[in-house]
């Protein structure tokens, strides 16, 4: 069946099994591969996107739940890739392999939108759903503080 939704500002109609997780609809049908598969069980955060501005694990919600709603992926975060969070990430060279960072950035943006001056505890609470096997956590904390302090 056709599911209509908006991805990064563009209206799209996907002919898809409504039970398909939003993640695979984004990756395999819409062809946007910045959103990553890490666990398929809402355990790692690699697939995080924004659904009507809310942080969402796209592997754990069916595409039908996004019908008529607005999805933002890492590719749609800022036109030139210059969202302050993305800039801070680059300035601190946060990424190692980079694979989880789409999800990390989507989580960080959501955190900063609801809490512009998070403490370390706030950051830990908001970011602990995102696994990074390379171990970039301390730099992620620094990058979020940097954005909060308006330095990037």
């Amino acid at each position, binding site marked *: 069946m056709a599911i209509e939704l908006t991805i990064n500002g563009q209206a799209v109609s996907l*002919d898809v099994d409504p039970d398909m997780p939003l993640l695979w609809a984004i990756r395999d049908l819409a062809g946007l591969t910045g959103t990553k598969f890490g666990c398929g069980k809402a355990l790692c955060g690699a697939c995080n996107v924004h659904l009507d501005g809310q942080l969402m694990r796209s592997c754990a919600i069916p595409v039908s739940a996004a019908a008529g709603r607005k999805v933002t992926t*890492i590719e749609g*975060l800022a036109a030139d890739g210059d969202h302050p969070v993305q800039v801070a990430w*680059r300035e601190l060279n946060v990424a*190692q*392999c980079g*694979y989880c960072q789409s999800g990390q950035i989507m989580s960080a943006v959501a955190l900063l939108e609801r809490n512009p001056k998070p403490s*370390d505890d706030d950051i*830990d609470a908001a970011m602990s759903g995102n696994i990074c096997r390379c171990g970039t956590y301390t730099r992620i904390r620094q990058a979020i503080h940097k954005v909060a302090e308006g330095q990037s």
Partner: protein
Amino acid sequence: MNELQHISRREFLKRTGQASGGLVLALTFTAGCGRAGPGPASQGAASVAPNVYVNVRNDGIVEIICHRSEMGQGIRTCLPQIIADEMDADWDRIELIQALGDAKYGDQNTDGSTSIRNQFDLLRNAGATARQMLIAAAAAEWGVPAEECSAREHAVHHEGSGKSAGFGDLVDAAAELEAPTEAPFKSREDYRYIGKSMDTIDGFAFTTGQAIYGIDTVLPDMLYASIARCPASGGTVVSVDDAEARAVSGVIDVIKLPDPTSPLLFNVLGGVAVLASNTWAAQKGREALQIEWDRGANGAHESAAYRKTLVKSVTSQGKPVLTRGDAAAAFKAANSVHEAVYYAPYLSQAPMEPPAAIARITEDGGCEAWACTQNPQAAQDTVAATLGIDKEKVKVHVTLLGGGFGRKSKPDFIAEAAWLAKQTGRPVKVTWTREDDIRHGYFHSVSAQYLKAGLDADGNTTGFLHRSCFPSIMSTFDPSATGPGGFELDLGLLDNPYDIANMQIETAEAKAHLRIGWLRSVCNVFHAFALAGFVDELAHAAGQDPRDHLLKLLGKPRQVNPADDGGKYTNYGHPLEKHPIDTGRIAAVVEKVTDMAGWGRALPDGHGLGIAVHRSFLSIVGSVAEVSVDKTGKLLVHDIWTAIDAGTVINPDRVTSQMEGAAIFGMSIALHGEITAKDGAVVQGNFDTYPVVRMSEAPEAIHVHIMESTAPPGGVGEPGVPPVAPAIVNAYFAATGKRVRELPLRNAGLT
């Protein structure tokens, strides 16, 4: 049908106004690999390649070919730093091209922390010979001696005449010349990029979703595959009922893979593949398969029973691999004797990107694959063997790797894609699920370690025995392998640096029941855990401060050669003269890292500091952890301090980031990591049952110091890992008085 299904990702980005370019676009498979430099229209040569790593285009861009795999260690930044520096090329006028797998590049196997330590000279030579060739070209053009010319800032200059020419302008003249094979290297003080913290070259791609990994590659008309594999290693399919799977919308075919044969090597592991029009349909179809398995020879493997087998083996007579003095006599004469058995479980590498590859059969009967591989030449070999074709007909494109940690050195998943592409006649992408990754990998070995020491009345260690027992990695290649051997003894066992007059090192037998493979720092993980933990025990037994005791045990600065005591030691493939086991350098690291941590300071109640030091992959890393246990029994790691002596360092920030990452990776090993087997099958399956450290557990800070050194470069990717778990265990003892001799710590009642 939705039109989006028929447009490419790049086109989608363009339509939605999100396209943005830069250096990183060279990563995408359409533009990424081995293409000739286009250059502007010109009568002459478009480019000249002084060697396989450099191609100078007539538009002035220097293409640098990265033949090593990027998995987070930063080689795509560090490799061009070396070449561009030796070439005197400008950083903003280079373009990085990811190499195909090809023997012409030499060793491409990106593991063993080898990229810099083994290839620093090769890479410097690539840059230096390119520079020399451009100088020769300019000298010939100007009719002046080459010795009077020099390269600087992407150009060649002749001071006498004031002439200069950009690299791009010299392409035609250089194309007439024979490329030199050797050239002098720059001196250290002239470096522009080596030793500088250059920003990560893929930073923009990493932060915008444009980085392309193995899982991201897309080909027209491709099928998506998900494979059900036998729960037990080496087992086979008895029967398959695929009716329900075929009924799943989007499923196109179900194909049984060839049964695995011994040795398992990097070959296809058998099982049943479901092929579909998208990943989700393939996974759903695969879940609907009804398969009867024959679990085979390993079907009874069970971890609790196997642990008893290992402990029994390690506490029995071993096979000596190094003998100094007479340890047995020293134990008899000792004032006190201490012994301990340390145990560490199987681990899974669990890179965030699970194994994924895409392959297609080419018109000439060859195979072209795109994959997140650490070892593209092994991928060529394995795909060629799987399809029965020549290696030369296998083309392997290396994507970015979403973590590797040793898992992606094994190209079994690429062979699966290739075999399925051959069967279906269409391109096939194989994507492992997380459960596939955790249950069907090449596991870090489970191990038991036995240690014994004799102390004199003053607490000096006079006799020492270390016996190591674990199923060998060699079992994956030779099923008759029955225990530790070969290079595994190099990894923290034979290279014991301690100044003990009577020392015996032994191995004990263990048979493998899972596919065994590498994990970041390999056997150093359990050897360092046991050795550094036991040395800490000896400090307390002697009533000495662990730091002072450690320095005393290291003895006076000297160079240790295991061969002096009969050890067949290969020093990670390098002569000891170039990369000595230098106890003075080890002690310096201990002194530095304990100073950083404020060793000996008054600590808050319930806090403890622990130290561990370990040399691996030719580098020395010392770690200090500060821990406490809260009222709920949760172990908190407050800070980790790390000092590394890696000799000459190319990019200090990437070294620092590797130490930060190793601290977290080591914490995961210390606190959580455990793979167990039941009825031959791995019990754990995802990050709920195989937890790893999350941000809430990360230390407040990871403090890293890089020792100043002009020594040849050592490894960086792995050496940060081994000291972390023992530092934490030793800190836990300092905090609580409780000694833990097994990993993970959650099994010791800590959460």
